[in-house]
């Protein structure tokens, strides 16, 4: 990237040039993050079309406020913050009281399950976790974000992220020891095309 915060402070004219160069360079990077945004959204809203709607809203907002992104910081984490905010807004609109959904029908995973039985068991167990446990595991264990970045996305103190992560891992262990009830399996199309 061409600019950083210190360079921005060097003067109004330079700042304008730096921002312009930055924004033009960041769009291909944003496009490259779309698959990760889709995965995050898919596991949050549990519906292919609604997840992509959420991603599109996130992209629109991100582009509109691209000047607030700091070059050199984790673009994926920044986009995840926006995506999460979009989701919170949707939940608030749909549930005026603001409570998050607690009913979590199990999601299925695509076929191709000839090998790696343990991996599939882990995926099935993961999908049976609560939304907050799925979220924190996705951000830290799957996407590899730092705890601080996960805390910013989830709007939680760092210590809460740590404890939630610990509980999520324990819940995953517990889920691995319990067979999935067949009645909770939802159609494959809900999650993957």
């Amino acid at each position, binding site marked *: 990237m061409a600019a950083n915060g210190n360079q921005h402070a060097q003067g109004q004219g330079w700042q304008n040039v730096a921002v*312009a160069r930055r*924004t*033009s360079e960041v*769009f*291909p990077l*944003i*496009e490259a993050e*779309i*698959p*990760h945004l*889709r*995965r995050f959204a*898919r*596991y949050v809203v549990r519906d292919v*079309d609604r997840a*992509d*709607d959420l*991603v*599109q*809203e996130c*992209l*629109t907002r991100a*582009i*509109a*406020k*691209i000047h607030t992104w700091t070059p050199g910081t984790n673009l994926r984490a920044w986009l995840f913050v926006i995506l999460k905010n979009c989701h919170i*807004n*949707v939940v608030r*609109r749909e549930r005026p009281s603001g409570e998050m959904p607690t009913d979590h029908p199990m999601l299925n*995973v*695509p076929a191709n399950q000839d090998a*790696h039985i*343990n*991996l599939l068991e*882990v*995926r099935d167990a*993961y999908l049976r976790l609560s939304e907050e446990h799925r979220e924190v*595991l*996705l951000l*830290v*264990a*799957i996407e590899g974000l*730092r*705890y601080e970045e996960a805390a910013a996305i989830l709007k939680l103190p760092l210590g809460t992220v*740590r404890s939630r*992560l*610990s509980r999520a*891992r324990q819940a*995953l*262990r517990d889920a*691995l020891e319990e067979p999935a009830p067949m009645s909770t399996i939802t159609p494959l199309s809900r999650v*993957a*095309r």
Partner: protein
Amino acid sequence: MLSDDDIQDYIDGRLDPEAHAAVALELLARRDLAAKVDTLRRQNEALKVVGQEILDEPIPERLRSAVRQAAAAHADAAGERRLAPRLALAAAIALACVAGGLGWFANELLRPRPDVQELIVADVADAFAFYGSQGYPVDFPPERTADFASWIDRSLERQVPRPDLAPFGYDYHGGRLIPAEGVSIGVFQFAGAENDRLVVFFWRAQAAPAQVEELSRRTGIAARFWHDGGLSFAVISNARNPVFDETANAVFSFFKTNLDSG
């Protein structure tokens, strides 16, 4: 004594080499804890493939175009490249408004530096010029009208009903939202019997462009633009004929009657 945080940091690779080695050494001496940590590490590794199939899916075109159109708009707005001939032409087309009647805007000058509103108009017309002959891509086909209405409500923070243009020979083919200049532009696309296209664009705006001029009637594209109740509208078609004028008037009247005050 290892804490829960130590174990998490160890599993997530957050420890520096010295601390990592210290944890590993302690685990050697505590087989019960080592077994638990080993299980958690295996879990962690297995989790990395969760959703891999989603990453491998083709990206829907609507998501790609959301970024690319915004990139093009930014490049234009920032002066990073000159307007391409097509965009210049399209901008001219978009700024063309038919004077007289029903409150259409008409003015005498084209400003050399269009303001944000006019850049949006240029985007709108450019998009139409680019897609017009094949039909504008839609993200929300007619069967997803309710979803699209919800999206419009969220993005524009108000409801915008869709006009029925069947009496004028135009069937509804779907809608989409496109980003431009920091706002979302709603699109209703219609097609006529001769495969002519008519697209209604709308977006939030505090005021109309300061100056709008009729520039050309030689382009084969007809455009109407107006501003009302906190929204700007453009109706653009590749069929310039009396039906277009009649239809555009109907669209104008429809929103005049059916739009809630924002």
